[in-house]
Structure formats: structure tokens, C-alpha cells
């Protein structure tokens, strides 16, 4: 299994954290919040779709709201495979960062 990319990782994490309300707009806002960068809507559709296709996310259509012009939301939810992928990338990062923080922060 391929490792997640950084943006995929962020998106999965955002979905996880958002829980019941995880659809495109809040996800985008969450990402903006976390990274302090401007994510475009278009920029997150592709990874969302890709993750869903890979089985790391699943989606359902929810009720519509007036501010959406009466259209449905697509709510995303992490699947076990998604969680497993997140764990994997976490392990990798832990390993690769091992020993670095002391050096870095010790220097400063």
C-alpha cells in the first residue's frame, strides 16, 4: 500500500475531527485553520474522490439546506482502511522524526 501524501493525511485528519459535519466546506475551513493557508475547494475535491475510491473514506448524501440552493451535502466518514493508513503514516513519521526534535530544539 502506498503511503498517504501530506494533503491526503490532512484531509483524513480533518474528516476524522469534524465527525458528523464532515463535508467539503467545513473540511476546507478546517484545513485553512490547521495549515494557515488558503485551500481552494477544487483542491480538495480530487483527493477526496481519490480517497473514497481507495476505500479510505466513504460518503453519504445528507439533507439539503436552503443556503445550498436546496442541494444535498456529501458527508464523508473515515473507514477502517483510512484509519489504518493514518496509523501507518504516523508510524513512519514517528520513526523518521526520532531524535530530531532534541537536536533541533536543543540547538535553538
Amino acid at each position, binding site marked *: 500500500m502506498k503511503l498517504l501524501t501530506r494533503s491526503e493525511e490532512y484531509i483524513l485528519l480533518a474528516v476524522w475531527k469534524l465527525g458528523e459535519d464532515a463535508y467539503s466546506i467545513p473540511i476546507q475551513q478546517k484545513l485553512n485553520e490547521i495549515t494557515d493557508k488558503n485551500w481552494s*475547494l*477544487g483542491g480538495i475535491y480530487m483527493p477526496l474522490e481519490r480517497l473514497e475510491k481507495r476505500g479510505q473514506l466513504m460518503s453519504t448524501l445528507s439533507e439539503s*439546506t436552503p443556503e*445550498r*440552493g436546496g442541494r*444535498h*451535502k456529501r458527508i464523508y466518514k473515515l473507514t477502517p482502511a483510512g484509519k489504518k493508513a493514518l496509523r501507518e503514516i504516523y508510524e513512519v513519521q514517528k520513526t523518521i522524526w526520532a531524535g530530531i526534535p532534541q537536536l533541533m530544539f536543543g540547538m535553538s
Partner: protein
Amino acid sequence: MNNRPPKIAEKLLSKLLYDDVWKTTLGDFEEQYSYLLDKEGKSKANRWYWGQILRYAPSKITHKLYWSAGMFKNYLKIAYRSILKNKSYSFINISGLAVGLASFLLIGIYINHELSYDTFHEDSDRIYRIIREAPEENYMGSSWFGVNPMPLTIALGDNFDGVEAAASFSESEALLKVETNSFYEQGINTDLDFFEMFTLEWISGDVSSAFKNPESVIITQSLAAKYFGSANPMGKDIFFDSDDDEPVFRTVTGVIADIPSNSQLVFDFIVPSYSLDNYERASTYWMNNNEYSYIKISPGIKPESLVPQISELVHAQLVLDSYYANNPQNLPNFKLVPIADVHLKSTNINFNPGKLGDIKYIYMLSAIAFVILIIACVNYMNLATARSMSRAKEVGVRKVNGAFRSNIMMQFSAEAVLFSMIGIVLAFAIVFIMLPSFSVLVDRTFNPNLLLKPLFWAVLIGTGLIVGLIAGSYPAFFMSALKPIGIFKSQVKGGTGSRKLRNALVVGQFAITNILIIGSIVIFQQLNFIKSSDSGYDRDQVLAVTINDPKLMQSYDALSQRLASNSNILAVSSGRYLPNDIRSQTSGVNWDGKAEDEIFRVYNGGVSAGYIELFGINMIAGNTFNKNAPDTALNMIVNETFVHRIGWTPEEAVGKDFTLWRNEGKIVGVAEDFNFLSYHSTITPLLLRQQTPRNHQYLILKVSPANLQQTIAFVEEEVTALGPDYPFQYAFLDDVFNNMYRNELTLGKILNYFTILGLIIACMGLFGLAAFMMEQRTKEIGIRKVLGADIFQIVTLLNKDFLKLIAISFTISLPLGWFLANNWLESFAYKITVGPLVFIVTAAIAFGIAILTVSYKSIRTATANPVDSLKSE
């Protein structure tokens, strides 16, 4: 406040995002939009929303293109495979399309050429030809004339209101001579106004200096090359000998480019008319009509508005003459004809420059072109639908695998387009190969660069694609509508609906072909009637030598004796005209008992003794001309119509005194009517008078068919011995005669070729159709044979269906063909009647060919071993 995104933008975006996956995205955008609306204001939100469209459009478009290109590649591949899979079917279809397209293009090239006449002149939409109606005259069936007095254009060119320029010219034939090079050439006499009107390209020299000197001439490039080779012709002298003038040396003062092939005015040299002998008189005398007149009118002026003023101008001059003062009802009327119409719409006008075309033939040929194209299209549709059964399974599998109806339609359209593309390539090859012989056939020179012109390619490819799409649309529509369930339950057996349509198409195809056949036969019969009919004089083995040297005829007696001494020359005579074309007409006749105000028009020609006998013209009463009659006696022979018109019996007429142009003479004989004009006009009064041969244009010899070459060589030797300065020109009378019907001959030939083509294409279609129908019935035939049917019964059974269709088509085309044939024959005064024979022959051809075509297949089917057809499943 409206807090929805802009409507148009929303629509566009929804189009871009149409796929299922994207359905919710539109909602996301709207939510984001209202968020931005609250935070940043309307304009910013709108801009963002529009921005999304720009963002998504490119990827969407490339996405779409990528997939449809992939699909298209697949369509082509399938089409290619299906062409290979059924080679004979593909061959029939493609060659039918190619031949149809090629015929369409060839006829299109011809029509385009005919319609382009004289349009190359600058402001050609403002140039008009003046034609004149002389109410009291009827010459060769029409009272309209293309010739006018010279002072008319002089007056119109002189600051006449609404006329920007006016020019006139007369045609002239002259013998040109440079050292030993000597030929007859066609030219015109005109003045400088001519160049203001018509667009001619100067190679050397210019308008201002060309006609400074009266003894000058302007020649075309090809004439210059003919006489001077590559040397510079400017300033060189050419010896001119023409009827218009004393023989004279003229200096080349200008060279112009060759006249384009779509010019109605055809000439190789231009002589200034003011240098001619009769100019003084011609330019001031209003009673002499000898000039073709053209005017260029000012922009914004209506041509009709000028006509009254032109009439007034002419009438004011003509009433000065006592004849018109006493007969004002005979004053001429005028009409202005756009220069572009002169070529095609002048057939009923007497005297025209150049070679005329006929708008009727243009309509006829356009119809033929479309008809052939339609036949080819029908072939395609017919064969494609007939084949639908064998391809139904393919469609079924595609549909089951998820093909939309539009995919199937695209697939079949692509196939048709591929067929027509191959057809286009073949059609181009055919046109390329056939163009030279086609140009001989229609007697026109086409621009050699024609095949490289973008317009030609646009028409070629455009027509090909349109034909492909039209022909492909029906099968595409039909095939895509099939229901997969039905297909696999094998319920598709061509359906009665499609069979009816196929039958209708075959009927239509053969109806058109039948009409073409009827047309060909009728034209053939009429031309044959003309060629073989007894025109009242004998035109076989008659050699007509054109007299160019006026001195030659002074020694006519000696010459004729020497010629007659040759045993292969049976008779010698001479005449101003040949008996097929006596076109001089006069009303200057008088006789005892003629009413004062009676106008009696009679065609007349001078001949020498022996003319009547040489042509074997039958006499009804009196005698033929006497060889020994004194030169002073005016002896005349008139035709039957002549005496009937006056009210004499032939016997009464003989010996009557008759005055021609104030010369008193005697009628010595009455001849049977013979056709001295063309079969288009009825026979009118004719008068032949005996005359010394001095002014005769033809030396006429009756020769025996034996040793013809030697006889001609002998005549040439004798004639050139007396007039060595002039080339020897001769023709056989039957050729001259046939040449009078050149337009009809051309039409007949064109129609023959295209009829054969139409028949071939239609038969190919029938053959293909028959082949598929029989394939469908293989099992049925097998069972019939097992049950005891014999081959003949089966062949009859199979042929019957097709012959029924041909029979129906025949009943449709019979009245239509009859109507069209009679319409064409109307222009002839002497003609065949369209009898049952025409239709019998047409039926025989149509049925014969259809039976041959179908039987080839049906006999094979009928003789097949039933074991083979029944065991296979």
C-alpha cells in the same frame, strides 16, 4: 436582496459539473458563495463564482475531447473492419458514391463555368448589352436583334445621363500574314471606349497610345506567340486582309493577355474602327445595324429607367427617314440585358458575339447532377438498411454493454463518413482523369488550375460529407432504435416498415433512371431524325470549298471545267450560300398584283447554274437554271411556300415577272420546299437567283466516294494554283449540317453518359439489395427445393419482387418522361413524335438490366444445394 449566484453562471457550472460525482459540488459552491457574499460583498462573491467556471472548463473540455476522440477512433476501427469484412458490399457502396460524386463535380464544374461568363469584367453588374426589337422583322423566328447602329453608342457615351461608358464593336475575320505565316483569325473592330468598359490585361502598350495611328492593331499574347515566337511583337507589321477594309499593313501597338475562356467576346486582335473604309458613314448613319452595343450604367441607376431615353434617342433619328415617318409602329424597341446573362439567355436573339450556351441546358444538367447524387445516396441507404439484420446483433451487444443510443448513431454516421471519405478520394481521381475528355465533350476550355482552387476542394469535401451524413443518417437512426431484447429474440427481420422504405427507394431510383433513359432515346431519335431526314437536298459527298480570294471566281468557268475533267468529281457549282443556311432576307420584292402595303419577306441567295442539279433539289414546275443564260437576265427559282404565300399555283408562277431590288426578272421554275435554315424554324418563302459566281463564297463539288483523299488533293492543287496567297479551306456539307445542331449533340452525348452512369449505379444498388434479400431467404429456398420446387419456379419467385418494383417505377416515369421530352422537342419546328417505341425501348432496357442483375444472384441461390443451406445453423 438576491443572494443566489448569477443564473447564467450557475447554469454553466452545472453543465461543466454534470457527472454524478459532482452533483453535490454545486451545493458546495453555493454555500461558499453565500459565505463570501456575507463576508466580502456581492461583487467579490460573483467574481469567485465565475472564477470557478474558468477553473473547471479546461479540464472538462480536454476530458470530453479525450474520451470522444477515443470513441471516434473506435468507430473508425469498427467501420474499417466492416468494410473489409464485406468486400463486395463495400465496393458497391464506395464506387457508387465515388461515381455519383464525380458526376456531380464534373457537371458542377461545367455549370460553374457557364454561369461565370463575363463576370470577370470590373463592375460587370453595371454593364448591359443593348438589344433591339424590330417589330416588322422576323428573322429566323425572332424579331429581337443583338446589333445596333454605331451612332447609338457614340451618343450614349457622350455625357448621356445615367450612362458611365458606352462601347460598340463588330466582329471581323481577317487573313493575317507575317512572312510565310498566314492564318485566318477572329478579331473585332472597335474604339478606345471598349477598354473603358471591358477589363483587359495589358502586357505591353497602353490605352492612351495604342490607337494613335490608324494602321495599328492590338493582339493577344497567343497571337503574338503564333506569328512572332518569342520576339517582341511591339512595332512589328502584320499584313491584314479582311472584308471590312482594303488589304493593309498594321503595326502592333499593344499586346493584351489572352481572353479568358469564360468570355462571351472571343477575339485575337483589335483593330481601331476609325481606320476602316466605311467609318465615316457607319458612325453617322442610324439605319445600319452592324454593331454589338454595351453600356456601363452609373451606380444606383435602374436599367429599365434608361430604356425610354434610349428609345427616344433612336426614334428621333429614325423618323428623319421617310419609311419610319410613315410607319411609326415599326420603330424599334430596346432592352438592356445584364452582361452576365448574355451567354445563357440569348438563344432567341439574332446575332450574338461568340459561342452561346443555353440556360435550359443548365437547368437540365443541374437536375441530372443532383439526381445522380441522389441515386448514389439511395444506394447507400438501401444497402446499409438491408444489412441491418446482419449487424443487429452487434448493436445488441453494444447496447447491453452500456452504449447509449447516441453512441450507436455516432458509430453508423462515422461509418458513412468513412465511406464517403474514401468516395471523395476516388471521386477526385475520377474528375482528375476525366476532366480533359469532359472538356472536349462539352466543348469548353476549363481553367487548368481549377482542381487546385479552395472552392473546388470545399465543394468536393463538403458535398462528400453531406452525402455521407445524409446517406448515413437513416441507417444510423434505424439501427440505433433497435431494442436489444428484440434483437436477441431474433425478432428483427428487417421489419415491414423498413422493407417498404427500401422498396420505395428502389422505385424512386429506377423512376429517375427511366426518365434519363427516355430523355436519351428521345434526343437520339430527334438528332437521328435530323441527320437522316430528307432535308430536301442531297448532302452526301458534297465538298464545299470556301472562297477566300475574290479573284479566284473570275476564272470560275475555266476552273470548273478543269475540275469537272476529274472523273471523281461528279458535278461543280457555286453559290453565295450552302443550302443548309441561306440566311439573307429581304423585303425588296415586287410583282404584278402585289398590294401596296404588303410586306413580303423572302430569304434569297445567288447561285450559279447546276446548283439545283448538284443538290438534287426536286422541281415541281418549270426548269432549272440554264448554263447559257446571258449575265443580264435575272432568272429565279422559288420554293413551294413562296408560291403558296402569294397565292399562285406552281404552274402559274413559272414565267411570271418578278422584281428584286428594282431589277426585273423572271421566275423560271418552282422547287420543292427544302429546309434551308434549321429544324428549329419552319420553312418560309425562298428565292434562288442565277448569278455570275464573282461574289460567291463557296465552290461546291459533288465527289464520288472513291479516292477521296486524291480528289481533295487535286482540288487543293487547282484552287491554290489560282489563288496561292490564301489557305485552302474546305468542309463536307454533312459535317457543316451536323455542326448546326452542336448544342443538341452535346446535350445528347452528355445525357447518354450520365444515363449510363445512373443505370450502373442503380444496378449496383439493386444487385447489392438482391444479394442480401436472397441471403435472408436461403432457408426458405432450401425448404421449397426439398418439397419439389424446380429452379425455374424459384428464380421466378425471387425475381418477381424486384420486377414488380421496376414496373411501378416505370408507371411513374412514363408520364413524367413524356412531359419532359415534349418540353424539349418544343424548340423544333420539325420533330419526331414521342411514340410508344420510346417507352417500349426504355422498359426493355430497364427490365432487361434489372433481370440480368437480379438473376445473377437468384440463379445462384436457386441452384444451391438445399442440404448446405438447411444444415447450417
